[in-house]
């Protein structure tokens, strides 16, 4: 019998190594896997590369992980926001590497990774400083920039419902980066608000099929 549910946070976080590339779902505070981030803080892995749209706020979750010196490099589209004090301080002090990626290119790099596409050409960022040093080619009369797939070792995802096969649904705008990140990591770890019986989720409404999911922890909202 397949059962991807884990019984404890320790089990959910088991085996995350130093130096891992960690993909984070969420956009702002919606769909952010807060409990799993706390679990990662507790688990202790360091020298992490974090891929997320935002760079945390306040002194909790991702911001706390960075504040503890556990993140070497962050890849994101919009690190600066109200409350991103930890990010700004570490960045100014040169204690955090930053790679800025246009939001759509970021999402597409994970989609490519999840789909086995090595790299792709896009017109986004042509002529800007974010395209500097990257291969460019004219395709169908338009200049395009080569962008590479971005694979994760770990993805941390927040779902609304999950069954024991790891089929997930999302809630409204909480789908955001979660469904993309889930496809692009070697190990995808999910926190879910609700547990669903196998077969009770509408197959038409499953946002992430269980094939992309490795571990699920029930974290009631």
């Amino acid at each position: 019998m397949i059962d991807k549910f884990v019984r404890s946070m320790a089990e959910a976080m088991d085996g995350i190594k130093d130096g891992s590339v960690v993909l984070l779902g969420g956009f702002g505070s919606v769909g952010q896997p807060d409990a799993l981030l706390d679990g990662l803080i507790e688990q202790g892995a360091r020298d992490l590369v974090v891929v997320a749209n935002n760079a945390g706020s306040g002194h909790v979750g991702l911001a706390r992980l960075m504040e503890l010196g556990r993140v070497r490099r962050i890849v994101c589209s919009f690190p600066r926001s109200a409350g991103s004090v930890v990010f700004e301080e570490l960045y100014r002090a040169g204690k955090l590497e930053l790679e800025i990626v246009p939001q759509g290119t970021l999402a597409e790099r994970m989609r490519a990774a999840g789909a086995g596409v090595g790299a792709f050409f896009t017109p986004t960022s042509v002529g800007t400083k974010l395209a500097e040093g990257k291969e460019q080619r004219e395709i169908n009369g338009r200049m395009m920039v080569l962008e590479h797939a971005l694979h994760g070792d770990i993805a941390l995802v927040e779902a609304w419902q999950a069954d024991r096969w790891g089929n997930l649904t999302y809630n409204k705008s909480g789908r955001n980066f979660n469904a993309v990140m889930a496809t692009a990591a070697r190990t995808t770890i999910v926190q879910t608000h609700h547990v669903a019986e196998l077969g009770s989720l509408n197959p038409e409404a499953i946002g992430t099929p269980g094939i992309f999911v490795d571990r699920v922890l029930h974290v009631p909202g």
Partner: protein
Amino acid sequence: MSLWTRTEMAARVAADIPEGWYVNLGIGIPTMVADHVAPEREVIFHSENGVLGMGPAPVTGHEDKWLINAGKQLVTLRAGGAYVHHADSFAMIRGGHLDLCVLGAFEVAENGDIANWATSENDTAPAVGGAMDLAAGARRLWVMMEHTTKDGRSKLVKKCGYPLTALACVKRVYTNMAVLEVTNAGFKVVEMAPGVTREALIAATIAELTF
């Protein structure tokens, strides 16, 4: 001379959006455009965090923390709306499916270049968000901005000084002084705010204007 207020600018942009268009409104002043499209006119608003068919802010008591827009404000979903994940949301943008995107800007050049994401080459903490995807991907890009900076410098320029967001993609600019088309011959003035004279507009603008 009376300049258009932000509300009047938003209403002016809204009046130019035909029913049936799929539209993304950038963070800041462009967001106000939605307030000037009557609900019975079916313009479909897209928010890059995966909301297609976004409605106005919720009424008190009906807020849902799971439903936000790209500016992280609480919003609603109108009948016919849909939720998608980020890669699909940006496929709508990057695949040329949006009829229109309205963005704010620091500068627009007379060839349609736009600079709207960083004010220096060495920003302490740059942040681009979806601006480059929207500028390069939407079928039409309109810019809504003040005509000049607070210290009176023209934001319509011959060549952008700030880091670029995208090349030659702005089609129309709505400022508090005028509405301008970007043409092969530079900015062409379509309309001026009441009481703004040609002379005043030319004096406030570094870029060349045609009338």
